[in-house]
């Protein structure tokens, strides 16, 4: 069970029931539970979609696409059944927010899935939770069972004459499955290899039927929007970036934790105010603002509002809300190596630029960090990464390339300091630095 934190600047919308015992259905009902879906049942599907569109809610998984817009792409008429799929495969390094939603407020996700289903005309929803989150799967399975027992889901929900089924589904360890088309493959019982697009899932998704796929936090944000109204929600954030967001502060911070802050909250304030600053008298070296796939920011680049557009303008991405803070004892070459090791491990191997690129980068950076770097390697790392960008069927290749390019560009000097046999200045004396086996590259 993960510890909860709080800060006076928090605006609790998604997290308002955290620590309130809302896994219990009666308690959830006391705290305005299942009111939003009853309101949505009385609305026209287009009205629900418009409300979500006008709220400025954008995908909390990382891409930041307008949720209402995504829903509007689902065809009204379909010969095949339509589906809603909740993405709870949270795996982006630095991200640990969906975990808290499932742990403290599972019914809000169920309610979000229901409202999405009403909006697009689906009769079935799936809540996919990563395999490592077993205790959360148990919580979610119970929540679903309880909701069925009260007739909130199943046949004739809330006496509306509509049928709506919601089921749990579990993964078994794979970052790649968090990508929407790989997620569908996994749910269909296959390897999580991405699908070719178009057609997009909204048109051809699960078992060929139109499918809406949203992150768990996105769906948990929907009931408050329906109850509080689009305008209220939009005004919590910045223009085109409605509402609040769960930010996962981690790394070298005095008070790491998951905090719900308005969209557009200043990043510097988030680190020094909310997160309590850098401990042990150290200085800030860099910030990864939105999960491991987002380009690193320097201390002079962090006086920015944390919304999708502002972070984009600063040359990075808001991503999944995982703010990873690095102090000045961190070796960037090592950090880049650990990042690329992850993507190399998780690449499904379908697209050659991703499969080969991540492996080459890992080998080069391993050699580099062990002191065997050559001058030409620095440009090679950049060249390799740039050649991966936009050349893969899913964004995993980009996710590996983008941060790597930024590490080299912004910390070139530190890469140069590792050249030609020089030991890493950040390693403690006597530390074992991983070497590449002979002939490995």
């Amino acid at each position: 069970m993960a510890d909860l934190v709080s800060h006076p600047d928090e605006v609790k919308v998604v997290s308002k029931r955290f620590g309130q015992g809302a896994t219990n259905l009666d308690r959830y009902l006391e705290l305005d539970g299942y009111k939003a879906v009853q309101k949505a049942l009385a609305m026209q599907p287009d009205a629900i979609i418009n409300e979500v569109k006008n709220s400025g809610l954008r995908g909390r998984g990382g891409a930041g696409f307008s949720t209402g817009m995504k829903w509007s792409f689902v065809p009204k008429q379909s010969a095949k059944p339509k589906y809603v799929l909740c993405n709870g495969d949270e795996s982006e390094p630095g991200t640990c927010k969906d975990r808290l939603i499932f742990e403290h407020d599972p019914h809000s996700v169920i309610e979000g899935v229901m409202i999405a289903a009403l909006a697009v005309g689906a009769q079935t929803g799936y809540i996919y939770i990563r395999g490592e989150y077993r205790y959360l799967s148990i919580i979610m399975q119970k929540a679903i069972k309880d909701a069925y027992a009260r007739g909130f889901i199943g046949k004739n929900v809330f006496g509306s004459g509509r049928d709506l089924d919601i089921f749990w589904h579990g993964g078994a360890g794979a970052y790649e499955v968090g990508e929407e088309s790989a997620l569908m493959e996994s749910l269909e019982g296959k390897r999580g290899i991405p699908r070719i697009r178009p057609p997009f899932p909204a048109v051809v998704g699960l078992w060929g039927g139109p499918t809406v796929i949203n992150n768990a936090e996105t769906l948990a944000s929907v009931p408050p929007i329906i109850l509080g109204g689009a305008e209220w929600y939009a005004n919590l954030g910045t223009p085109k970036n409605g509402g609040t967001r769960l930010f996962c502060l981690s790394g070298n911070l005095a008070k790491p934790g998951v905090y719900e802050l308005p969209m557009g909250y200043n990043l510097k304030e988030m680190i020094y105010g909310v997160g309590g600053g850098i401990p042990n008298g150290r200085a800030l070296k860099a910030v990864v603002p939105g999960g491991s796939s987002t380009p690193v920011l320097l201390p002079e680049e962090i006086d920015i509002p944390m919304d999708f557009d502002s972070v984009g303008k600063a040359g990075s991405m808001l991503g999944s809300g995982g703010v990873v803070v690095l102090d000045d004892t961190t070796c960037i070459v090592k950090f880049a190596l650990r990042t690329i090791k992850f993507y190399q491990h998780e690449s499904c191997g379908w697209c050659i630029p991703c499969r080969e690129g991540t492996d080459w980068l890992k080998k080069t950076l391993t050699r580099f960090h062990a002191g065997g770097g050559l001058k030409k390697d620095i440009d090679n790392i950049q060249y390799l990464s740039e050649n991966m960008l936009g050349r893969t069927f899913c964004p995993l290749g980009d996710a590996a390339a983008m941060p790597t390019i930024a590490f080299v560009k912004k910390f070139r000097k530190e890469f140069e300091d590792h050249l030609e046999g020089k030991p890493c200045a950040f390693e403690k004396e006597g530390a074992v630095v991983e070497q590449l086996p002979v002939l490995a590259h």
Partner: protein
Amino acid sequence: MKFSDEFEQRFSEMIGHYPTKRSVLVPTLLYAQDEVGFLSDEVVREIAGRLDLTELEVRNVISYYSLLTTKPRGKYNVQVCTNIACMLRGAEELFTHCKKKLGIGHKGTTPDGIFTLEEVECIGACSWAPAIQVNYVFHENLTPEKLNDVLDQYKSKGIQ
């Protein structure tokens, strides 16, 4: 082969949740592994048979997912996250400490069959780093001292 009643109940319930049988494959494999300890030839044959798949089709899926294994493991699988957020807060030292204390390396199993050690990717405990999972249980905000206590507790449970 025989699974527990709980497994069977879950299996027959879940298979009705999807338009195709094979959709239950991934979670079913994980639940089967939890009962047997690993995905033995017998388990693969059994599940392939139930879902009208070939054994090869099932093995293809198993090899993709990092939690699924066809090799026996210790009673407690100690999974140490060394990804970025944990690394910044001392995960490498923790992993080294585990290796020394248990006397095994990555994916090794102790001779008494109690522990398997594994270095894993992000487990979603970034704000409570460094963290490990033992089977499915999270242990967070760890130091080498706290880790000693955790491992000792599992050890005494494992001997019983």
